[in-house]
């Protein structure tokens, strides 16, 4: 009786739409649900990224994974944990904090209910990716439920393991189009005793040059970020560098980093404790942007940051649109946000940014756009040379095309 209750899905109104969402409680429930239904399925966790990439066609079923929640195991001494995939990142971090550990991931959507499984499916990460890697580097095991209800596991509870294919990599960035992520095993890191942030006024060219200098130095910042001023705003923009570690080591590194930046004509101020935390909370808000904006993420070379920014600004200058860039400079990952009155101005900005990025071999993921833009632009951009292979992978794992139809159209 108990067991039956736990595998029976709940039905509630879904934030993603009017359709009723199924809320399985665990792997078995999710597998039963997938096996016993037909028709298209939209999978989501915290529903923070439903607008990423192509729009999903009106689905026959919505599966909300947030009832598949809870930390299954946490072994502090091994620095690993396994969780049900619908566990929110915040809930996991809270659980780990009492042992002085964390999943070294700080995506902007973390404060908005993003789940571990959803973050893996989206391939999302934050500034700390520079030091700790993203989820593709931190996930060591995964349990997937395929569209036909098949349950497959890969990896294990150990960090070092080369047995079998790594299915976690395949779902990383798949945006719910290949399988439901049901459980995730992650490696953890010790929470740094202290974090110090250096903040300095810097324009795009200064920020790019300073980042390359810092990365060529033996200093090991945990994050290097640049936030532009908005086009209409004042000031050149701000460079943020975070140092993690013991108080003594961080103090020494902060001093050296300050010296390095001064040598480049950049004068940083030190932010500690609450002021450092506030700066990073503001930074996360800047990554997300407003609901009426077009937001893209570009992943390319660190050295290309300034050029990418100038190109975007140039395009929007003519139209009066406003552009903001938030860049993980050292990672070469830039979030560009466009605000404009006309859909055509959004479209022009997106097209120009994408063209420039693609020419440089960078990738462009459309994260958000006003609905009116759908008829004006292609959501995905130029297909990669691996597009046929992607179609074959999709056909193998989801032969009936049930999961997230439209998400990667026209690629697959």
């Amino acid at each position, binding site marked *: 009786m108990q067991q039956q209750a736990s595998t029976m899905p709940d039905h509630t109104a879904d934030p993603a739409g009017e359709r009723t969402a199924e809320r399985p409680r665990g792997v078995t429930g999710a597998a039963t649900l997938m096996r016993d239904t037909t028709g298209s399925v939209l999978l989501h966790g915290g529903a923070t990224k439903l607008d990423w*990439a192509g729009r999903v066609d009106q689905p026959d079923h919505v599966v909300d994974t947030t009832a598949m929640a809870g930390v299954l195991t946490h*072994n502090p*001494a*091994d620095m690993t944990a396994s969780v049900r995939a619908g566990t929110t990142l915040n809930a996991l971090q809270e659980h780990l904090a009492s042992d002085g550990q964390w999943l070294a991931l700080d995506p902007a959507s973390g404060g908005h209910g993003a789940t571990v499984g959803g973050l893996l499916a989206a*391939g999302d990460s934050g500034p700390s*990716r520079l030091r700790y*890697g993203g989820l*593709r*580097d931190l996930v060591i095991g995964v349990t997937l439920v*395929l569209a036909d209800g*098949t*349950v*497959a596991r*890969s990896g294990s509870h*150990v*960090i*070092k*393991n*080369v*047995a*079998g*294919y*790594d*299915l976690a*990599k*395949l779902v990383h*960035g*798949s*945006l719910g189009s290949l399988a439901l992520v049901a459980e995730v095993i992650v490696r953890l*890191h010790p929470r*740094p005793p202290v974090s110090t942030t250096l903040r300095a006024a810097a324009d795009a060219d200064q920020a790019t040059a300073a980042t*390359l200098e810092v990365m*060529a130095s*033996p200093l*090991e910042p945990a994050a290097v970020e640049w936030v532009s001023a908005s086009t209409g705003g004042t000031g050149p923009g701000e460079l943020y560098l975070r140092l993690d570690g*013991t108080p*003594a*080591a961080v103090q*020494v*590194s902060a001093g050296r980093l300050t010296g390095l930046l001064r040598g480049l004509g950049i004068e940083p101020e030190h932010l500690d404790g609450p002021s450092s935390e506030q700066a990073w909370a503001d930074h996360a808000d800047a990554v997300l942007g407003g609901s009426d904006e077009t937001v893209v993420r*570009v*992943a*390319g*070379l*660190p*050295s*290309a940051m300034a050029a990418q920014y100038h190109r975007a600004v140039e395009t929007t200058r003519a139209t009066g649109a406003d552009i903001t860039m938030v860049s993980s400079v050292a*990672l070469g990952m830039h979030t560009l946000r466009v605000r404009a009155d006309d859909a055509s101005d959004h479209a022009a900005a997106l097209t120009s940014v994408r063209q420039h990025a693609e020419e440089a*071999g*960078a*990738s462009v993921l459309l994260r958000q756009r006003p609905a009116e833009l759908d008829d004006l632009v292609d959501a995905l*951009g130029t297909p*990669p*040379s691996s597009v*046929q*292979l*992607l179609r*074959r*992978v999709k056909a193998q*794992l989801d032969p009936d095309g049930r999961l997230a139809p439209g998400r990667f159209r026209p690629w697959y």
Partner: protein
Amino acid sequence: MTTAAAPADTDTATDTRGVVRQLTEALRPTLGPDQLITDLTRLRTYECDAITGYRVVPALVALPESTEQVAAVVAACAQAKVPYVARGAGTGLSGGALPVADGVVIGLARMRRVLDIDLANQRMTVEPGVTNADISRAVAADDLYFAPDPSSQTVCTIGGNIAENSGGAHCLKYGFTTNHVYAMRLVLPDASVVDVGGAGIEVVGPDLRGTVIGSEGTLAIATAITVRLLRKPEAVRTLVADFPSAEAAGQAVSGIIAAGIIPAAVEMLDALAIEACEAAVHAGYSQDTAAALVVELDGTAAECDEGFAQVEQICSHAGTTHLRFAADAGERMRIWQGRKAAFAAMGRISPDYFVQDGVIPRTRLGEVLSRMQEMADEAGLRVANVFHAGDGNLHPLVLYNAAVQGESERGENLSTAIAELCVEMGGSITGEHGVGTDKACSMPKMFSEVDLAVMQRVRSAFDPDGISNPGKVFPTPRLCGERPGPYRVHPLEAAGLIERV
């Protein structure tokens, strides 16, 4: 026996000749005569990798020098439905590059150009035959390096590292090959050429790059690889701490981890391993200790000094009987030489031995060591232990004498039982050597039939006809009837050119 085998051999010979003729004709326009090997003597060079107990002579060896030539060889194989096996330096320890009978070996050793170095963005693009160590060497003067450091790094190739997702002694802190590759050009089993990854850290859509890395040559052949380079750490500090028991050494490792220190490396050797290493290398390890830990920290000088003082304290607290600090780079190298000589050194104390590569959650070390001792006693054999203590990757060496009736079989059974004990403890049958031919039959201990079937579905997306390195990773009835051989010292290892961990 001979009469029964004779007709089959003749058939095989005819088939082989047919295959060779068909393929050489197909490849003549693209590959020069010196790029195809067909005579038996030279083919034998390719009959095994570093697991010399498995040997199969291929029908043909092709030595392409460009992506186009690799694609041409694969196209010819696909057309003729002939299996092929990609091969780097042949240093693999799982029979992953074992040829398929009547099949083709695609040797990538001639593709060893560095295609691009981007110092500002800390990236390098190389062909698959470039050795792991040559990547770091090319940028050493610029204070950059390629982090994965398998012990065979002076000879093993980046293409092989891609296939095996190679790690090394420093992977607890720095990760594996998959964490250090931005992009790859791939030749798929249908001979199409695709790029995965890109200029940046990620692409839109599923991570095909990560799927291919570690797939042991069953999904694709990488012909150009863009790797991530890291800035060399400013400071490196190394110590060796002796302990009265492996448990005490294990406590020290737990203490280091609990203190929030992520060491660049932590290695443990037991008394038997130390005895063998000292006999071979004279690296200065104490011969009267039950266990020794090698701990290495790196980072900024301030961070390193602080952490090192803490490590020293933790070791003392755990009951260390002797601490030795590497005074300079030369002494550090000697400590590592001793550690890395472990496998080859076993010949000093035992005529034959099997090398195991299991992984356990580190906290179960004490439990596993006593279970292993019980199992060894039961089998009447000795087991020496060297392992990457930070990440729980064990390399038990099962010592036996093949000349004694029944010992090889007992040794082999013990070795397999140890790998499967690791799975029971929530770990893995292989931490770094790969599944290959050697461990395919243990895969069902770790994965369900359904798990393996789903992995096969992924494989079918890349290789529907199963021509790319068939018989590896996944168990087959034919394979699982065969037996692995003992560990044999690779000629390069004997010559002191490589070490294996």
